[in-house]
């Protein structure tokens, strides 16, 4: 058998996960549908007054994105855990954090990217100021990967549990707070025509921090849960 280089392993795993996701389209659509539906609920709940909606649009979009990303988290490792692939992954010769990173990337491409694509439409429906669209896309682009990365730690810790869902949200949501604060504020600021550079830089910092630390924590947590 030929040995894979680390790079190859990363790409193979990424491609495999993407392929699996596309074979199972309903799972692909669910987080997106959830995202849209939560956002639809807000005008129904707070009233359809355009000024109010435009004012709270950044918050709504981000809270919905947070929840959608959290609900889809379980899919990162669930099927692999159940059919034993995960165990093989941990036993492989490649460093687990890199494999984790491949899986999280695949997960983000499947769940985060659709949010990115659909969000301008929802922003338009909520009447968000047009000058903020660019920043909105940027925050989702930078923010949702952080959510996936942090979330992967929580999933790895709760993977062996039958009722992991509630616990998972309890573990993960407090850690999402900084991303929520800076993303929503960036859009807020951009909507009134100010510069959101500071917030974007913070999000960028979070992304790098999460990229460099969370795969290790996830790998450690996976080893623990599988032992």
């Amino acid at each position, binding site marked *: 058998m030929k040995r894979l280089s680390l790079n190859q392993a990363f790409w193979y795993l990424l491609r495999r996960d993407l392929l699996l996701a596309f074979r199972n389209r309903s799972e692909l659509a669910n987080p997106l549908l959830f995202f849209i539906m939560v956002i639809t609920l807000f005008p129904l709940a707070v009233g359809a007054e355009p000024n109010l909606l435009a004012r709270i649009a950044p918050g709504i979009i981000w809270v919905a994105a947070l929840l959608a990303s959290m609900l889809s988290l379980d899919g990162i490792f669930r099927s692999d855990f159940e059919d034993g692939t995960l165990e093989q992954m941990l036993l492989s010769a490649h460093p687990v954090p890199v494999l984790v990173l491949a899986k999280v990337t695949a997960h983000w491409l499947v769940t985060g990217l659709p949010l990115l694509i659909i969000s301008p439409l929802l922003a338009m429906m909520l009447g968000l100021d047009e000058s903020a669209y660019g920043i909105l896309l940027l925050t989702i682009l930078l923010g949702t990967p952080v959510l996936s990365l942090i979330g992967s730690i929580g999933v790895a810790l709760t993977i*062996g549990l039958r009722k992991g869902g509630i616990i998972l949200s309890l*573990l993960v949501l407090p850690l999402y707070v900084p991303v929520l604060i800076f993303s929503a504020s960036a859009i807020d600021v951009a909507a009134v025509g100010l510069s959101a550079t500071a917030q974007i830089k913070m999000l960028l910092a979070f992304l790098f921090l999460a990229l460099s630390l969370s795969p290790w924590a996830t790998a450690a947590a996976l080893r623990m849960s599988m032992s």
Partner: protein
Amino acid sequence: MFKWFTKWFHRLGSPPHFYRIAGLWLPWLSGLFGILVIAGLYGGLVLAPPDYQQGESYRIIFVHVPAAWMSLFIYMVMAFCGVVVLVWRMKLAEIVLISAAPVGASFTFLALVTGSLWGKPMWGTYWVWDARLTSELILLFLYLGVIGLYGAIDDKRVAARAVATLAIVGVVNIPIIHYSVEWWNSLHQGPTVTKFDKPSIHWSMLIPLLLMALAFKLYFIISLFQRVRAELLHRERNSRWVEELIRS
């Protein structure tokens, strides 16, 4: 010196030794705690003059601030134990870690409630989304996450290591969360709630405050020892030393 330290560390890590030492220390610690509390309360409630701005209501500070300090301190202790658990797989650290969590959650809860009781006369409402109260609330969620995760995993040794990981992840995030919330607060609220911000505190208030803080630290140790003893006895119920203990 180092050799002596590692020896002491290993001995402390042995359950029967810790059980015995903690039992011996408990009465002394409790006595000291009592003295400190009485001194702190007397200083805080009787000797310290009323605040020129807040009148008598500021006296909540003597429980609120130490509780808030403890809430952070205990999380740090948990994270430290988490490192010990993951690196050395020390059983005692596992137990200390999980025994500290409910105490920390209690202090966080106290800091929140006393803060809001202080807020009522100061701000006119029980709750404002003040930076400190908000981060304290998030800290409470972090504690509850730790307790919930530990409770959810059946194998307690695995649970302890999972909780150790979570505590470390949490401790990395706490400063980020704290500063994010502070920044968010400065953005949305303006300087209306800065009444609490670093008042130049007079020594007649500072001394009781420090006494109470010290008393709370001692209380944490007492409560921790008690929990650890109970947990040790339960976990090691089939071991030799427990049997000997029961026999004697």
